[in-house]
């Protein structure tokens, strides 16, 4: 085990429950590095939803909540409001964050509360057996869409930005260095931070949607389907069709943060009485 793994992971919970080649482990790896670089272990609170990705915080030896399906952001909001010095990180899957918890997600972003949401985007409901998810590409065949998915997938980053998130970034597990840096930036940012991670699911999305269970091939496919946000600026709409923009997509440091604003008002009201 890597020395950072020795330092930050719960030994009694190992080995990690994910399938061989699952991207969740790479995200855990990148998160542990970000926590080490920022030195915030003592004031860390991690919240996980339901799904494979909801297990990421369970392995990190810090204060952890593993909560109801889709309700990771409301729990994190309560946690942040009761203890505003905490650095709260939410791990959520695409189904957890945009499907079941979609409403909580947009309202968390609207409030601009200082929590970091790391959304693991694997295009499918992996843990429950490969059902169609809000991010499954149109026309993909899954267990519950055998004739092709008729729906359009959500764009998590656009939704976060439109809802008022002040830090929005997207990376893939094929960019572990940049991912770790983006997670550190998101944790450091005062406000609602959203990091979408495109990741491979060899067992469900791989076999069912992409026709291969080889994690390396899947990761190559994901990487080939992305374009850096800077390079995309002078590209036409046809060239960008179906591509995911990667990089820091939005960073606004001007908007006031919710918990800080709220406590300021409380102190003012208390002083006035």
């Amino acid at each position: 085990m890597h020395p950072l793994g020795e330092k930050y992971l719960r030994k009694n919970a190992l080995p990690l429950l994910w399938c061989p080649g699952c991207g969740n482990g790479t995200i855990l790896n990148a998160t542990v590095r970000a926590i080490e670089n920022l030195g915030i272990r003592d004031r860390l609170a991690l919240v996980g939803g339901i799904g494979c990705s909801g297990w990421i915080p369970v392995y990190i030896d810090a204060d952890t909540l593993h909560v109801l399906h889709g309700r990771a952001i409301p729990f994190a909001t309560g946690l942040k409001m009761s203890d505003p010095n905490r650095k709260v990180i939410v791990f959520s899957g695409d189904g957890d964050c945009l499907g079941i918890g979609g409403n909580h997600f947009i309202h968390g972003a609207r409030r601009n509360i200082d929590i970091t949401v790391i959304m693991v985007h694997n295009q499918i409901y992996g843990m429950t057996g490969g059902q169609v998810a809000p991010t499954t590409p149109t026309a993909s065949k899954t267990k519950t869409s055998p004739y092709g998915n008729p729906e359009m997938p959500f764009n998590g980053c656009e939704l976060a930005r439109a809802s008022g998130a002040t830090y929005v970034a997207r990376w893939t597990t094929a960019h572990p260095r940049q991912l770790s840096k983006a997670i550190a930036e998101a944790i450091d940012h005062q406000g609602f931070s959203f990091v979408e991670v495109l990741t491979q699911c060899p067992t469900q999305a791989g076999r069912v949607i992409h026709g291969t269970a080889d994690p390396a091939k899947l990761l190559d496919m994901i990487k080939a389907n992305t374009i850096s946000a800077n390079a995309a600026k002078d590209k036409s709409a046809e060239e960008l069709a179906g591509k995911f923009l990667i990089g820091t997509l939005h960073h606004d440091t001007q908007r006031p943060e919710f918990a800080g604003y709220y406590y300021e008002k409380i102190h003012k009201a208390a002083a006035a009485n």
Partner: protein
Amino acid sequence: MVIIDELYCKGCYLCSHYCPKKIIKPSGKRNGKGYIIPCIAEPEECTKCKTCELICPELALTVEEGAN
């Protein structure tokens, strides 16, 4: 030098695929879980870029400073 933790490796070979020098190869040896674990075929070629260490989903790889 690159150390592979045989206890935690699940043989996904992402390290091998992303190694820029392509020196991580299957060793033919199985670990306790039954996965064929990789080995460093040409340790002297390693540039210590740490890509394998960063991409490893099991945190099973460690790249140590010093001589190969």
